[in-house]
């Protein structure tokens, strides 16, 4: 088996708990991630699922180094990026991209779509790459002159995808990217993402609270509960034969659109 694109070893994240800050002395710390080990193979689509408070969003933000781990190691393409300072991280940034949950908040409201997608690109390749990215997500090139608030929710999320793929990354983290969308937009965005992953050979980590979406998109699934991985398995196996109680509970709770299936 080829070397994994991401390797995570004994990853821990703690945050200061400001609600219990004493008048003097150190702030007590809240453990968000309690020692995670997993790999993301090159070209894989990994699903990360869990309820609120499971730590899945923190895990995502730590992978793309928006948050600093307390302990453990993160290896990207063999290089240790666990505590890489911002300046040293910057050259790697274009290989590691992220799509955010709320496109309204993640697209700068006072920049045009063109500038949002082009900003991180260097001047020579800008225009063709922006047009190419918009083409990939099925939006017309005229959209470069629009502002985010002039688009629909589904269109905004496609701009989020275009911005990520314009960088030609190796890896994309998608954090709950369809949870704010209507079912029709959700289906459209997911199909788009599925096609792009296949065509561009991307490696994807897909964070979601919704197992039925994960089932469609992912090869492997990590189930998280209160900062720990309770189960990791290939998608098929996880759905056919869940091992952990919490996984079974999650599967049982999915309201399938079928009144004949007992709930």
């Amino acid at each position: 088996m080829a070397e994994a694109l991401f390797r995570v070893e004994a990853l821990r994240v703690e945050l200061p708990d400001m609600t219990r800050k004493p008048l003097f002395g150190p702030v007590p710390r809240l453990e968000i991630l309690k020692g995670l080990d997993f790999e993301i193979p090159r070209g894989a689509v990994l699903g990360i699922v869990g309820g609120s408070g499971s730590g899945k969003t923190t895990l995502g933000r730590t992978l793309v180094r928006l948050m600093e781990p307390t302990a453990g190691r993160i290896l990207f393409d063999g290089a240790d990026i666990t505590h890489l300072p911002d300046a040293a991280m910057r050259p790697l940034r274009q290989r590691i991209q992220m799509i955010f949950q709320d496109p309204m908040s993640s697209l700068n409201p006072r920049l045009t779509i063109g500038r949002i997608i082009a900003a991180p690109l260097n001047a020579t390749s800008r225009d063709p790459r922006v047009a190419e990215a918009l083409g990939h997500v099925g939006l017309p090139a005229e959209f470069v002159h629009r502002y985010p608030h002039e688009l629909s929710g589904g269109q905004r999320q496609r701009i989020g995808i275009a911005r990520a793929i314009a960088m030609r990354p190796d890896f994309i983290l998608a954090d709950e990217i369809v949870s704010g969308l209507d079912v029709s937009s959700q289906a459209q965005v997911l199909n788009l993402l599925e096609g792009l992953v296949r065509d561009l050979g991307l490696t994807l980590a897909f964070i979601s609270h919704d197992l039925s979406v994960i089932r469609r998109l992912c090869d492997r699934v990590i189930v998280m509960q209160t900062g720990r991985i309770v189960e990791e398995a290939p998608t098929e196996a996880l759905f056919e034969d869940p091992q952990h109680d919490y996984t079974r509970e999650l599967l049982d709770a999915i309201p399938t659109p079928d009144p004949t299936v007992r709930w």
Partner: protein
Amino acid sequence: MSAFLEIRGLSAVLRGTDLRLLRSVDIDVPVGTVRGLVGESGAGKSMIGRAVLGVLPRAVEIVEGEILLDGRDLLAMPPVARRRLIGARTAMIPQDPLTALNPSRRIGRQITDRLVDILGWEPARARSRTLEMLAEVRIPEPERVLRLYPHELSGGMRQRILIASAFVAEPELIVADEPTTALDVTVQKQILGLISELQARHGTALLFVTHDLGVVAKICDSLSVLYAGKVVEDTTVARFFEAPAHPYSAALLAATPRHTDPASSLKPVPPAVMHAVGAEIAAADRSWRPRHG
């Protein structure tokens, strides 16, 4: 037997314009049954629920139609009488348990106040009935919970409080507006189970607003599918999931994720379907003349 709630030809516009928000909506909710109201955002599903309860935003103006509660037209009643009737015989389970409880008042008062103020109960009776109801929604230590403030309870617990508060005065109709959208799936299952159980036990008519066809399949008896303020399909749950009649509702069902059958779910809505339903709306608008000119 006629339905407890009957909506007949209800149309609404954006105040001061001809822009239609509801398009001749007809909906029945017979006693003891659950009617799902399904659609995507902007379809007007919450607006119908709010119209029934008399809490539409000011920008929405009802221009024609009837909302019959037990045979009496709410829209033809004087405002104060309508408010009293709605307050006495209906209840609402709102979407977001975080904003549905007043943060500066204790839980107990939030449930009992209206029993005393509006329904004229003795305070002691209101209190004992509330405790009974809290036990029915399986809240541990109900005596203690009455003295707490909302922020001291989890989201799931708050939603239980709101359910108890909805059922406490034995209303004949409850409007539930996306009551589990803000919750985790495991909590959602418990809460929906609870709503179903109480609805069946008390024989309440329930109008259940949701965007999730999965939820409809689990707790509704019949459903109305809305698009742009128009009911495009009105049918029973059994028939709908067997074979949806309208192309738009069929497309909606095909777009809904289904883990038991990943390959045939999450289908994008074909543009042809959107065009067809758009044309249907436009045709209906051409033949429509608002009553007040």
